[in-house]
């Protein structure tokens, strides 16, 4: 207890610095991946993508990021065991942040497809199991989380397959695909808005002072969906058939209509990413703050201070502006074959899956979910060529990231313990 009171400020400052570092890393690399399908489809420019990401990552973190933060903060470790030695939890969380942040830096340097989520979960489990004791880990919760890593890409894949099939049926195979697109696209926009708003309101808005009942959630989400549907109708109406564009490729005009939808799903994706991945950076920070502010009590009930969410959001935006935009530009150049109709199916499927996971408090990998979603469209024979090597490297990165994160956090844990105690 004395440790906490005497070093409290230092712990807080360290937590904020490490948290910002981690958030910066997420913004620099992860966000670019999340926005990849949107930028790659050519429906939005890099500038627009950066703007959308900055606004909606922040909104996602702020409005829907609470549940995952809670999981990272106290779902993985049994904090009861630590009530006598709360400083261990502080060291552990700091060590985890540092370990995951450094691992991400190393991995992105070499271009390995590692996930921020996997790194931080691996790190927390690592320090808890070795530094405190195997019993300190909520293994059943960890099991659920790991399961969700397998299920989320599969689910997103199934959803995107279905979405793309519906696009074929409702638009591409019609006699007049262009007119069909203009009619149907606003409904997809409605669906996007409705789902995202609903999940967010179901789970997240208490901390901003909004208590909503189930019925209210549904009606607000419905209203929100209608509003953006109306907005999309306005912009779709402006698109005029350009016969010259269809000369080489008959569906060029149809794809222009999908461009409108792509903007909406890009926002949804940034929101979803913010709601899930920001927690990786601020969950541990929140844990440290909780302990320090209560003077050493491991307060299970303390609420998440809003400024921490803002800190995470700001870190992400900083990383995005300083480094992520360049990564986005590369992605935009590399993915030229993706058309908005596919980009939309994959992005919406991934965004929905991620938002659902955020609502249930499961930290998943946005990038891997998106990969699953893209493969789903590929299975519907919608994409010219996909590189299946990526799937293999993703599996490899799972096997490597968990132990790497764990080992590093164990190392930092004992280092911090040596310094302060």
């Amino acid at each position: 207890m004395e440790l906490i009171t005497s070093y409290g400020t230092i712990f807080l400052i360290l937590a904020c610095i490490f948290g910002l570092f981690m958030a910066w890393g997420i913004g620099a690399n992860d966000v670019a991946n999340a926005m990849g399908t949107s930028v790659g489809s050519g429906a939005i420019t890099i500038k627009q993508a950066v703007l959308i990401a900055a606004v909606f990552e922040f909104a996602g973190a702020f409005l829907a990021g609470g549940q995952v933060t809670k999981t990272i903060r106290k779902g993985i470790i049994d904090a009861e065991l630590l009530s006598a030695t709360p400083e261990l939890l502080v060291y552990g969380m700091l060590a985890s942040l540092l370990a995951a942040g450094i691992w991400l830096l190393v991995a992105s340097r070499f271009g390995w497809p590692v996930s921020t989520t996997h790194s931080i979960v691996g790190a927390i489990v690592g320090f808890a199991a070795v530094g405190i004791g195997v019993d300190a880990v909520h293994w059943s919760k960890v099991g659920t989380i790991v399961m969700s890593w397998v299920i989320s890409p599969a689910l997103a894949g199934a959803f995107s397959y279905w979405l793309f099939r519906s696009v074929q049926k409702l638009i591409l195979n019609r006699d007049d695909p262009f007119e069909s697109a203009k009619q149907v696209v606003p409904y997809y926009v409605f669906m996007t808005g409705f789902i995202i708003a609903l999940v967010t309101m179901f789970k997240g808005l208490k901390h901003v002072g909004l208590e909503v009942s189930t019925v209210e959630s549904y009606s607000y989400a419905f209203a929100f969906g209608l509003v953006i549907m109306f907005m999309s109708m306005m912009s779709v109406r402006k698109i005029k058939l350009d016969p010259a564009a269809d000369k080489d490729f008959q569906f060029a005009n149809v794809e222009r209509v999908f461009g409108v939808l792509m903007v909406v799903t890009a926002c949804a994706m940034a929101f979803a990413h913010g709601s899930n991945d920001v927690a990786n950076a601020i969950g541990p920070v929140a844990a440290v703050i909780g302990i320090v502010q209560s003077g050493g009590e491991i307060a299970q009930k303390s609420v998440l201070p809003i400024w921490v969410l803002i800190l995470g959001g700001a870190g992400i935006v900083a990383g995005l502006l300083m480094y992520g935009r360049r990564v986005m530009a590369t992605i935009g150049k590399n993915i030229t074959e993706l058309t908005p109709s596919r980009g939309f199916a994959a992005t919406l499927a991934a965004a929905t899956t991620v938002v659902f996971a955020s609502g249930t408090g499961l930290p998943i990998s946005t990038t891997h979910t998106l990969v699953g979603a893209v493969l789903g469209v590929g299975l519907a024979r919608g994409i010219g060529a996909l590189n299946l090597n990526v799937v293999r490297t993703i599996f490899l990165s799972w096997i490597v990231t968990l132990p790497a994160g764990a080992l590093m956090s164990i190392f930092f844990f004992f280092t911090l313990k040596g310094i302060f105690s």
Partner: protein
Amino acid sequence: MARTTISSLFGSSPVTPLQSHMSSVQECIVELIPFFKAVLKEDWSKAKEQQKKIAKLENEADKLKKKLRLHLPKSLFMPISRRDLLEVLTMQDKIANKSKDIAGIIIGRKMTFPKDVNEKLMDFVQRCIDASMQAQKAINELDELVETGFSGREVKVVQDMIKTLDDIESDTDKIQVKVRAALFKQEKDLPPVDVMFMYRVIDGIGDLADLSQRVGSRLELMLAR
């Protein structure tokens, strides 16, 4: 800069390269028309020039073929099977090869056809080129097929094109019979070795339509998967 997960997920689609290979093949084969016109007029310098042009265009198609093959790793996941794709590529390439062979034999032997074979022969060449043109038309629908996920109306469009291709091919068979019959009437008065090679050239021209048809039938297999 290292490629990110999402960008390395996307390979480069083989569809556009396959289409440009076919258009390169088509460029090569249409040169047979001015070539045959020159040959039938016995304008050998012009014919020689055309033959060189054909050889050059065939070479270009060959380069495209090699490039596409090198960019098709087994790990690529495509809406069409890799085997079908390579088969189509091979067939397309054989069309160009055959054109070059035909021009080569004729130039090498300074082959002159009997007068009443001439006209039918020209028809025959033209119709075989029609076949490859139709094959190209079908191949050009591949990007639309990928866009629609190989379903619905677009499949019907391509099937109709392939049906037309089959019709053209059977047309060329009929013309080929006539050309052979015309040559048969004259063959006793011509040097036997020359006649032998004339039949070979006629077979070669017929192969052009045959290969085009096989491009179409492979494409049909792609639809069926």
